[in-house]
């Protein structure tokens, strides 16, 4: 270091200053629209959305039950990985047989990948032998944004007190390879087991992997 720098440092720079807002890091991009992303450990945001059967479904209807939320987009390779291997359906059956509620949500906007009519959604449930309690159409994305759902699949588990206890990926293999389903650590299954036995969820937040949710 040359001595002029030393001078500056001793007498001026130590005054801690010299600020110029450096380039608007991020000026090109507006911050995320104020999403009140749901927080693990806090009450899950309430919502009401139309089910494919025609009736509106509210989270509040299921107070006292364990609720699983699954964001989906049937054309997303990562969703297909779990449906074409039967992995998702098995988990749905397992959960609902134990008395849990399974809500599948579709937040794809009209015209975007994964957007379906109620009839198409019901057709997919039948053809894929899926076993959710209900499939909800969230075409405006309000429910997805309330939960901060970024990916398909994006999974959430809500306990009997209405507290969000798990948010993130379905398992620990963030790939679209079907062969990775075998032997994966399924975070949703673990969360369901923990909640059912009254234990805290060990892995409560993970990186959801998959395709982006095709919001409006």
């Amino acid at each position, binding site marked *: 270091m040359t001595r002029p720098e030393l001078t500056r440092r001793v007498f001026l720079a130590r005054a801690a200053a010299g600020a110029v807002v450096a380039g608007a890091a991020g000026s090109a991009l507006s911050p995320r629209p104020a999403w009140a992303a749901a927080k693990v450990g806090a009450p899950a945001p309430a919502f009401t959305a139309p089910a494919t059967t025609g009736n509106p479904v509210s989270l509040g209807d299921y107070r006292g039950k364990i609720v699983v939320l699954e964001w989906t987009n049937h054309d997303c390779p990562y969703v297909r990985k779990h449906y074409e291997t039967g992995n998702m359906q098995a988990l749905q059956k397992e959960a609902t047989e134990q008395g849990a509620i399974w809500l599948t949500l579709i937040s794809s906007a009209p015209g975007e990948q994964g957007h379906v009519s109620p009839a198409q959604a019901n057709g997919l449930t039948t053809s894929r032998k899926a076993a959710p309690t209900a499939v909800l159409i969230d075409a405006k994305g309000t429910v997805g944004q309330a939960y901060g759902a970024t990916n398909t699949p994006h999974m959430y588990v809500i306990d009997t007190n209405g507290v969000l206890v798990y948010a993130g990926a379905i398992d620990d293999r963030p790939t679209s390879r079907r062969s990775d389903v075998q032997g994966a650590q399924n975070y949703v299954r673990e969360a369901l087991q923990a909640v059912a036995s009254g234990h805290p969820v060990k892995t409560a*937040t993970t990186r959801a992997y998959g395709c982006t949710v095709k919001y409006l």
Partner: protein
Amino acid sequence: MGPDGRRAGRSGAIAMAVALALLLAAGVRIAGADGAGPRVQAQLVSELATIEPGGSFWVALRQVIAPRWHTYWENPGDSGEPATIDWSLPAGFEAGPIAWPHPERIPIGPFMSYGYEGEVLLLTRMKAPADLAPGRAVTLRARAGWLVCEKECIPEEAAVELTLQVGPRAARDSRWADAFARAIRAVPMPSPWPAEFTATAAEIEITVAAPGLAADRVADIWFYPREWGVIDHVGLQRAVVLRDGIRLAVARGALSRTAEQPIEGVLVVKERIDGSVTTQAFAIRAVPAGPARLGAGSALALAQAAGLALLGGVLLNLMPCVLPVLSVKALSLVQHAGAAPWVARAHGLAYTAGILVSFGALAGVLIALRSAGEQIGWGFQLQSPIVVAVLAYLLFAMGLSLSGVMTIGGRIAGVGSGLARRPGYAGSFFTGALATVAATPCTAPFMGAAVGFAMTRPVGEALAVFEALGLGLALPYLALSFVPAHHLLPRPGPWMERLKQFLAFPLYASVAWLVWVLSQQVGPAGVAAALAGLVLIAFGAWLHEVSRGAAPRWRRAATAMAALAVVAAVVAGQVGASAGPRAPGPGVARETEPEAFSPARLAELRAQGVPVFVNFTAAWCITCLVNERVALRSPAVAEALAGQGIAYLKADWTRRDPEITRILESFGRSGVPLYVLYPPARGTGAGSGEPAVLPAVLTEGVVLDAIARIRSSAVQ
């Protein structure tokens, strides 16, 4: 691209040409059709055409990505998946992990992805076994997979292979030399600066201790965390370049982690250089900030910052730059001891007002200049040598007055010290202003954090913090002025005169300090000018004193002389200030460091026929720093310079030396970096030794090539 990749791997130039042709055709197909065919053309490439037994070399999965589509970095951001390469290597070969080039941020709707567009080389360091037989060929095979997304995502996979010749000596593959140089340059280098962070429930603030960067050159700063969930990927990153480093505030991610874990990631800094922008990437490992910095290691809220500023302001009274000014105040306290209590209080309030107004004015100027793009900080006024010189004169005159050399009668109110010591409240007000000017270059405990905070906030909040600092500075005297002093002090008497005389010495000490500051700013010539100015001030003071009571005619003449002396002193200060930055003294050059540049030295070396490499650089130039680290300080470059007998000069433009500015301009540049290689001047004839200008972004290869070129031209 599967099949194309396999073909590309076949050895020989013909196969490569075929592959390239296919690639081009594929590109056309993608551009023309809508979504048919693979989005990524992938192939395996190597920096070496011929490898040697036991050698290490770079290979890369080269992805040519269709327009508008992207692939992912190792942390893909809100969604996505990084590429994988599963190697199937001949016996004895070892492949390292992927060395990821720094990503770009790719906003997709409300999400943020980290990845690559266009073309990317995912580098892997490959080691060949020592028992490889030269003369044979080896084929490296891999199964590569990646996710490519536009809005929708498609997982793609390809089997890729690459056949390399084995020889006794390694040989480069010139086709990929540029691509590899760029890719290696894009891999984050270990940060030369330490980093730390503080965390609140909502935010993480990362501080990178990179002092002296030029904020106006920084076009963009982004921090890419290595792991998901540490920060909110899409959230705004508020970055500021402070004099002591880069501060970056980002929203926290979803993953709650203990505050003790370091945060790793890549800091990408885009720097403006002569109209273009270069990108530098640094691998950062931020450790939790020590408790010494910000108390409990939490980022500051406005109230906290104001509190710290207040405390810092109080402590500022004890710092050497303010103490002497306070001695004047102490004296006035003593002098007002006999007066009615409200007089002392009114003086205290006037002094406080003086401080608050001048703090407000300084902060306002600072904020205004800052928003106009000036790279200045708190205490900026003392960066100007003339301000330092005038402040020294002022304090010196006040000291002379206290010493009894001159008595301020209030008739020459224009003398600053007279103003500050005027019996009226204006005097107290101006003492406050003087205390402010003297205080700002000093820093007190707690102050740094508060000022740093203020620099990153909107105008209103920044002003609030600065005013809290000023209030802290004023507070002790204000409090004293509200205590009836005559109860605490001995009765007035000769001791007051001796106290007054004694209090001159802190002022002289301050003058000595300011002259030292000047010596650092402008060197010996400036110091000589300032000292001459001080002599003139003393002379003016003496004239002013001896002419008291003289006939009005003489009095006027003496006053005129005194005023002339003061003007001459200021002019001397001005001349001294423009004496220019001091030449780097002996002992600046270290170890393998280059010699300091001067036009004379360059001319001398060139006259001797010595080839010269000049590195025009500055401490605040990030690209310069990176170039030195990745290229100029490499052993190969040092060897080549020494081997060719090239003199290496470093022109330090940190202080914008006008001589260097002229040379930069002669090369059509308005700033650094600039690298010029002067070939040996041959004879006196024309055409001898046109200097070669190297690119602004250096790699080892670029420098070595330039050196090789002057060697070959010298041989001709």
